[in-house]
């Protein structure tokens, strides 16, 4: 219908053979022109309740259905890899437990064990056991928050409060030992800063009982709830091989049926082989599976902590370490099973008191990179379910 071109006089219109399919297509184009429904571009974030911090999701909607989603990150970028080049090893420990601030003790473990490998120092067994216990406690704290948070994102207000209430007991435990609830800064090259305070074992056992009870509560309140099932079953399915290609790790990939847990399969960094525990997987790979796997892993971690208390060896918590720590030259890659996924540090040292280059591989960065693929053709409420089920932390993405 391009106007402006001079039409030939009526009598001499060229004889045009029009086949029927052309007519239908012409009619349709006519309709589209009138109903010119442009797509709506919606900005979810950076201030949005469902983005756990400052992730911005630019979403192109057709009605309520997503055509394309493009996560915009970097609002929380603190430039850690640049900062590590200007700091000594103890100073970097305080830095890196602020990457995934929910399970901050678990961030320190790979960096410190990497430095210990470079220096050829072995932390004493009691320190290894306390490290494992505190890593599992921070895993429980992170997952308890997730179990409540997922309920909140899907609409139920109450589970979030149960999650926070039980997480307080676990944080008090961690604060009792390390002095800091969120940023323990308790790891030293060669062991730990201090030993357990008096009465910690009994408090830990009673807290683990509370954690197991709260897991059953979540089972009844959320997993058993048919509305929750309807909202999360077959929503946001991650196929196993595509997940691996995107670098998705942790409970997200185990929920797609990949039986891969760095605590058992990776390089031995903590005495997990001395405990008997099970790696939980789920075949479906949807949001429900991710919630279910994390619920079982919380229970597994609580049982692990109880075993650790049983077999805790006596002895010192700090190996013999020279006062001025100079890490010999070399490169090491240490990756551990953090609550959010595979967290690893590639430390390049040139024999100084600080590393030359540290590549920080954080779990949520890759877990979120699959979002553009996953969110195609999804409803708006399901975006929130998928974001909640992936469970990322912004500090982890932006480093």
């Amino acid at each position, binding site marked *: 219908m391009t106007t402006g071109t001079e039409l030939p006089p009526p009598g001499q219109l060229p004889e045009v053979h029009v086949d029927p399919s052309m007519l239908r297509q012409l009619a349709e184009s006519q309709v589209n022109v009138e109903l010119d429904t442009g797509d709506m571009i919606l900005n979810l974030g950076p201030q949005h309740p469902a983005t756990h911090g400052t992730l911005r999701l630019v979403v192109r909607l057709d009605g309520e259905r997503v055509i394309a989603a493009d996560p915009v*990150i*970097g609002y929380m*970028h603190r*430039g850690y*890899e*640049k*900062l590590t*080049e*200007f*700091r*000594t090893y103890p100073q970097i420990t305080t830095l890196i437990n602020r990457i995934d601030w929910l399970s901050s003790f678990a961030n320190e473990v790979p960096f410190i064990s990497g430095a210990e*490998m*470079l*220096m*050829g*120092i072995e932390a004493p067994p009691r320190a290894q056991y306390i490290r494992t216990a505190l890593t599992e406690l921070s895993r429980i704290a992170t997952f308890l928050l997730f179990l409540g948070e997922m309920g909140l994102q899907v609409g139920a207000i109450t589970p979030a409060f149960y999650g926070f209430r039980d997480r307080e007991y676990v944080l008090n435990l961690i604060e009792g030992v390390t002095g800091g609830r969120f940023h323990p800064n308790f790891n030293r090259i060669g062991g730990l800063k201090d030993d357990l305070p008096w009465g910690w074992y009994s408090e830990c056992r009673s807290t683990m009982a509370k954690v197991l009870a709260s897991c059953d509560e979540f089972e009844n309140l959320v997993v058993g709830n048919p509305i929750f099932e309807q909202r999360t079953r077959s929503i946001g399915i991650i196929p196993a091989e*595509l997940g*691996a*290609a*995107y*670098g*998705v*790790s942790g409970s997200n*990939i185990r929920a797609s049926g*990949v039986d*891969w847990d760095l605590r058992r*399969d*990776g*390089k031995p960094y903590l005495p997990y082989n001395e405990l008997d525990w099970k790696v939980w997987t789920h075949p479906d790979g949807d949001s429900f599976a991710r919630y279910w796997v994390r619920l079982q892993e919380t229970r597994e971690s609580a049982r692990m902590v109880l075993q650790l208390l049983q077999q805790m060896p006596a002895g010192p918590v700090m190996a*013999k370490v*020279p*006062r*001025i*720590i*100079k890490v*010999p*030259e*070399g*490169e*090491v*890659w240490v*990756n551990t099973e953090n609550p959010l996924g*595979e967290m*690893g540090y*590639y430390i*390049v040292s*040139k*024999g*100084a*008191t*600080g590393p*030359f*280059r540290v*590549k920080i*591989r954080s779990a949520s*960065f*890759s877990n979120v*990179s*699959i979002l553009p693929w996953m969110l195609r053709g999804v409803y708006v409420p399901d975006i929130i379910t998928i974001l909640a089920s992936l469970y990322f932390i912004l500090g982890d993405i*932006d480093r």
Partner: protein
Amino acid sequence: MPDDDATPEAEPEAASADGDAEATVASAATTLDPEATELLARLEAQLGDAVIEHGAAYGDVVVRVRPDAWLRTARVCRDDLGCDYLSFVSAIDWMPAPLLVDEGSGDTSTPAQPRETTYGTAGSDGRYQVFAIVESTQGARRRMVLKTDVDEQDLRAESWVSVYPGADWHERETWEMFGIEFDGHPALRHLYLPFEFEGHPLRKDYPLLAREVKPWPGLVDVEPMPGEDAGEEATPAVEAP
């Protein structure tokens, strides 16, 4: 292929106390357990002469390949070696950072890195190197560190997005931080930094501005006592750890 031994040449003076630890450090760094050597052999069988050098870093195989075989390496790793999981793709700038502060001022706020340029395991023939780690989630669950050199004048590398879609964000971040172009990457645009940001922050010659703005509180010296021993140096510059 000379098995380049990555024993640390510079004998760190402070670690003299644990001489024996020194021996274990050297051995742990270089020994490769049978699985790793077998993985390396299969890779070399596939790639032939593209593998320039390889080394060991505490149980992981580090392999340096020619830049033009970088994409082929990825495809070999994923299809033949079963490394279906991409951990990350990043880069290293081997040039030692320029000294921010003049030598004698006793400013020990930054750890003193050695001044001469040394390359890590499996060496490098230029300032920049792109390196990646692939792991396998099935079977033997092994890991491999792959490195390739980047020509300093023309910072280019092949993009892995066609083999590992996850590399998309990693390569965008590496381009943003180091300025290395990735050929075949769908959309190289800023990931962390605002779009009008110039410069590549993770390069060693990029200054850390926060440290130039504020004077270092550790520099303040205790004034010497008035009168006779003013000459004596105020505070013995304690060798800060």
